[in-house]
């Protein structure tokens, strides 16, 4: 690879599809979202930015895109709540940041990055992570931003069928 080259790869979840195919709108929407994530991360890299800034930029696009199970459009827990997890790691010095069971940051990856940049800890969870987010001024969103009617329907369907909660992303992706 030449000195000035870069590369970016993203994923939006894996799994099986109901009846083996994705509905056309979901297919087109997901592909468009992946393309926007590539555009956001590639813009950082093409301008000489760092890999860690690029992956954060790409993920924030996908967290805002309702076609994916993260941020807006996230799956609902058995209690009907949205609890988000995220992690980021920089290979240069193995710096890492991680948050679990957070409910307020619009971009959980931005909170994980704030944990990494603050440098004391690697992982914060639950109310402590929320308090850290507030203290660092990480942008918050209310539950209505994250929850989609389709996700509520999927949860109700799953519970009505008595299925266990263990499900690969895309079955209800």
């Amino acid at each position, binding site marked *: *690879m030449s*000195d*000035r*080259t*870069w*590369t*970016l*790869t*993203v*994923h*939006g979840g*894996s*799994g099986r599809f109901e009846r*083996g195919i994705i509905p056309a709108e979901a*297919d087109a929407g997901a592909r468009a979202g*992946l393309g926007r*994530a*590539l555009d956001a991360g*590639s813009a950082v*890299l093409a301008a000489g930015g*760092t*890999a*860690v800034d*690029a*992956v954060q930029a790409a993920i924030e696009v*996908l967290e805002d895109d309702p076609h*994916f*199970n*993260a*941020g807006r459009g*996230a*799956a*609902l*827990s*058995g209690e009907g709540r949205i609890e*988000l*997890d*995220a*992690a*980021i*790691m920089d*290979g*240069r010095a*193995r710096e*890492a940041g991680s*948050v*679990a*069971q957070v409910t307020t940051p619009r*971009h959980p990856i931005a909170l*994980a990055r704030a944990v990494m940049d603050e440098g004391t800890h*690697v992982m914060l*969870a639950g109310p402590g992570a929320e308090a850290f987010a507030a203290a660092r001024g990480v942008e918050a969103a209310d539950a209505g931003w994250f929850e989609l009617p389709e996700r509520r329907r999927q*949860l109700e369907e*799953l519970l009505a069928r008595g*299925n266990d*909660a263990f*499900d*690969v*992303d*895309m079955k209800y992706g």
Partner: protein
Amino acid sequence: TVGAVARDANGHVAAATSTGGVTGKRWGRIGDSPLIGAGTWADDACAVSATGAGEYFVRVGAGRTIAARVKMLGESIGTATDAVLGEIVALGGTGGLIVVAPSGETAWRFSTPGMYRATASAEGARVVAIY
């Protein structure tokens, strides 16, 4: 679950993963995404982001193991990812991973019928795929 891995113009790599978990998950259940070394990892060997049945990626230590195989066995990221996903499948898990090396080599592997994935490079390569 969504993820990204990148290699910048200075040859450094990074990984990021974000998720809502799984529909109907038990209260308090955490999967592999936020666990450094499982669903998210980056060091000077490679950067990894995973998606799928998280408990299996945790038990295998997926991201860290791929990097260790590259560093200690001299495997390519593709070979190392095949081996680690093979361990996951052998335990009964399913899912996928995206990986990038400081050389700029990239790899993705998945054991499910599909994985939303896309890649781009300075050379102008650009792929968006699902199946």
